[in-house]
């Protein structure tokens, strides 16, 4: 889950409003796809690397992001080479790597909650469609919070089953996991209610109406 990979920091990139970073990401993506030039891809790639190093995020971080993507990069570049030529393969690979690194830079320097708040503000135009941005943003937060829990519940159930002699079985694992998830969903709903959550109020705040 890329969104949760925030690295605490105090540099300029951390202080930029998340909305601006998201806009820059969208603009860069559009530009790179609209203008397929090797020079542009190369310059962007170098510039993004420079942003990392300038922000104190070293080669180790960059490598950590690129390494899991190497296979995909190789496949995409290989296909391009086979279809066209080596230069366009290089262009495509640099472009993809630059975008990937820039997107990661945004998530590395933006707290999930700030990103969500920015999205919430950006979603205000959905209100006439009866979509409440506050609810959307709470849902996103909950997803970020509980996706890792899903993993640990599955691991716990497996462990308990193995301890009692049951080896791998998808159904035998899925059933107790789902039961626990349903119970958990119930409890979470209670906890949110008990802490005074009221989406009606959130809405008026997120659209910038003044509070009394």
């Amino acid at each position, binding site marked *: 889950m890329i969104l*949760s990979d*925030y690295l*605490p920091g105090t540099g300029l990139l951390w202080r930029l409003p998340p909305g601006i970073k998201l806009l820059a990401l969208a603009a860069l993506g559009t530009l790179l796809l609209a203008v397929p030039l090797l020079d542009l891809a190369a310059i962007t790639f170098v510039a993004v690397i420079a942003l990392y190093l300038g922000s104190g995020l070293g080669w180790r971080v960059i490598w950590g992001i690129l390494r899991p993507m190497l296979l995909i990069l190789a496949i995409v570049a290989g296909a391009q080479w086979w279809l066209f030529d080596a230069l366009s393969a290089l262009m495509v690979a640099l472009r993809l790597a630059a975008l990937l690194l820039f997107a990661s830079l945004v998530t590395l320097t933006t*707290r*999930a*909650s700030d990103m969500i708040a920015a999205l919430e503000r950006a979603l205000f135009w959905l209100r006439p469609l009866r979509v409440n941005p506050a609810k959307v943003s*709470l849902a996103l*937060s*909950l997803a*970020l*919070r509980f996706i*890792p*829990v899903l993993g*640990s519940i599955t691991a716990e159930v497996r462990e308990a089953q193995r301890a009692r002699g049951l080896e791998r079985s998808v159904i035998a694992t899925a059933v107790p996991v789902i039961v626990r998830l349903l119970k*958990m969903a119930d*409890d*979470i709903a*209670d*906890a*949110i*209610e*008990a*802490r*005074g*959550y*009221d989406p009606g*109020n959130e809405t008026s*705040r997120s659209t910038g109406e003044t*509070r009394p």
Partner: protein
Amino acid sequence: MIELRDVTHRYGERVVLRDLSLRLEERRVAVIGGNGSGKSSFARLLNGLQLPSAGQVLIDGLDTRSDGKAVRRRVGFVFQNPDNQIVFPVVEEDLAFGLKNLRLPRDEIRARVDAALARYDLTELREHPAHLLSGGQKQLLAIAGVMAMEPAHIVFDEPTTLLDLRNKRRVARAIAELPQNVVMISHDLELLRDFDRVIVLDEGRIVADDRPGPAIDFYERRMA
């Protein structure tokens, strides 16, 4: 003040609380009893998470049935399982959640979050992912999140089951210093020695209601 009038609670056919009438005016009230005796059900009635099958629950004169929202604002609740009450992915965000719901000004939220982090020794974990906390740290976070809201009454459902001795004492001290009214469910009898009143439940009935000394003695004899 918390008042129950002829409260009975059932899940389907099963009666879990029978005909309770009570006025809780003391600052620290504890509820003890065996597993399944109805303690958690009792607690959930107090902030309107659950409405009684019959009878009335009044918090400072507000009926949980008709004034649910106002009641929840007055009654904070710390649940038995800390995992399911931490709703934000990062420690300080979770602390801020309840405060935002109270619509406090931003500075006030920041100040209260800082104070809560310091008080429960969570400052170093402020940007820590919630799912990586230990069980006890989660419990502290859940407690801190509710205390920071400063509700008039706080209900604790076994808040110290996962805590080590130091954190247990830390929570006990925090509770002792709270200006608010506390209703605490606990199996940890040590924690209740300096409470004002202890109620013993058994199969949904009150079987003792006294000062901690005699009530705990009664309970220990009964469980022996």
